[in-house]
């Protein structure tokens, strides 16, 4: 086996009718990493995953998984990947165990191997007690767990998880996070899509921010945060405070443009941290005649990254 990366995409284009889902996606996912594909709904995350998993044929560009082209060597790609989509890919009328055995057999395991593998996975995902029940009686969280278990059959080298926690309650989400963290201990490459900034931050070693069908930023969560300014200063103005004056007063200290909140009572700007920064800023604002209630420093979040890269917040676009 050569040293080809786990996933490589070069200018991948995919159109659905007149809608462009992928507009030249470039991506390199190193082996053995948890890689996050972060973006709002409609950014192209699912299309990207479906293309890598050989479910969609790209209209342009090329994509390779472990060095095998997803179009010309689709069969080889299929033998090394596992996929968990947004909708549980299970037979509702079969029991959990029967689902896993079926997928094991279809993954070319012998009957004995498939049975053993199903038993192991049910045990590890805490589903042994419910193993004989038809999947249609399962809760959303149990389905996701079983679905993830199904994608692990045959120990795939590259695993795709498409929005693994969308629609789950916080407790089920925490359970899924634990499971995903444990997965990565085995050295499996994991490509995870999410619209939750926190999820990417929690799970992924590297993140590609995707918007409008292309990657607009890439790096570790830390790198992405420092790209927008590692630290941010937040200034809460007293009611009736002069926003324009405050922005002018902040300018000498900030490493990028200041953003005012909608009600005009809070200003934020990236800053380069230095000793006594807060005190100096308070003095400058005071000198400019701006009344403030609080000045604080906080570390940039992925929300800030997203906002500064796309001009809209991740959640905002989701709601729209």
């Amino acid at each position, binding site marked *: 086996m050569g040293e080809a990366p786990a996933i490589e995409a070069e200018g991948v284009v995919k159109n659905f009718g007149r809608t462009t889902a992928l507009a030249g996606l470039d991506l390199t996912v190193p082996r053995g990493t948890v890689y996050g594909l972060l973006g709002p709904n409609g950014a192209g995350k699912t299309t990207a995953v*479906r293309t890598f998993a050989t*479910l969609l044929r790209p209209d342009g560009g090329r994509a390779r998984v472990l060095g095998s082209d997803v179009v010309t060597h689709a069969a080889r790609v299929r033998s090394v990947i596992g996929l968990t989509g947004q909708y*549980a890919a*299970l037979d509702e*009328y079969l029991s959990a165990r029967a689902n896993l055995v079926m997928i094991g057999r*279809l993954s070319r395991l012998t009957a004995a191997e498939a049975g053993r593998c199903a038993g192991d996975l049910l045990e590890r995902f805490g589903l042994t007690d419910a193993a004989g029940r038809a999947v249609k009686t399962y809760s959303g969280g149990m389905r996701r767990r079983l679905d993830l278990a199904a994608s692990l059959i045959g120990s795939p080298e590259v695993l795709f998880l498409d929005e693994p926690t969308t629609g789950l309650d916080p407790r089920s989400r925490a359970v899924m996070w634990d499971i995903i963290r444990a997965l990565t201990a085995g050295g499996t*490459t994991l490509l995870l899509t999410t619209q939750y900034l926190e999820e990417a931050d929690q799970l992924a070693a590297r993140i590609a921010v995707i918007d409008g069908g292309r990657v607009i930023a890439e790096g570790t969560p830390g790198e992405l945060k420092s790209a927008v300014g590692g630290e941010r200063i937040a200034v809460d103005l007293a009611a009736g405070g002069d926003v324009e004056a405050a922005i002018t007063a902040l300018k000498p200290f900030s490493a990028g443009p200041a953003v005012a909140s909608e009600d005009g009572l809070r200003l934020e700007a990236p800053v380069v941290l230095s000793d006594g920064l807060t005190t100096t800023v308070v003095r400058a604002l005071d000198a400019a005649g701006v009344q403030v209630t609080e000045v604080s420093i906080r570390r940039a979040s992925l929300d800030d990254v997203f906002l500064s890269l796309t001009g809209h917040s991740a959640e905002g676009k989701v709601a729209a």
Partner: protein
Amino acid sequence: MTSAVLSPGRGVTRQAGRFAGFVTDVWVLTKRSLARIRREPETLAEVTIQPILFVLMFTYVFGGAIGIPGGGSYHEYLIGGMLGMGLAQTAPGTAVAVVTDMSTGLIDRFRSLPMSRAAVLSARTVADLLTQVIGAIVVAGVGLAIGWRVHTGPGDIIAAFALALLFGYAFTWVGACLGMVLRSPEAAQQSGFVIFLPLTFISSAFVPTQGMPGWLQPVAEWNPMSALAAACRHLFGNPNPAAAVHAWPMQHPQLAVIAWSVAMLVVFAPLAVRLYRRKALG
């Protein structure tokens, strides 16, 4: 969770051979469809309750009003036609099952597995063939109960059922194609009324073609359903007025059934698999 089961690389035995793989895939997926029937036996209604109702209605409601050219009992005439209807009737069920499958995430999983591309639809048709066997037994059983009798030997009886099942199997691929083309289970269900009901009624399945208007007779005589009915009646030694009809399929009904069935299989099976691959690729 330990990493043992999840570490990369497949330390598992790969079964050799594409064909062996295909057979395994079809077998595994056929068992899946049969498990569904075990959990919801009411899905068998279309090959059990429906044919029983049809046999009883035709025998006791219409039967007395239908004359058989050349004589003979309508009870004995009906069963040959009923077999064809009972089996072709499962095609809309195949279509519904395929549409439903295609709309779930399960198909995505199948398509991301290193399994045979043709297996999903093939398994569907095999499972439906098995339900057709049940349907054929039900038709024969209710036939015997109302006084249908066979006047030939075991060889002819086996040949008749074999032809009927070959014919029925060809129809499952028509259903699979419809399932790939139609968008909703409701539309697939409708195909039963729009396609398969006229196909059955404009044939000699229930009434001899001699009583139809002249312009309709050739349609009925070349209808594959008429060929199957004539072949079964001939092989069972039942009244077969079609023997007096000069159209080629009525003179050679067994050959006609085989020709129709093979033609349907050759056209619709590859077409269905192709549609499946195409649809799957978005």
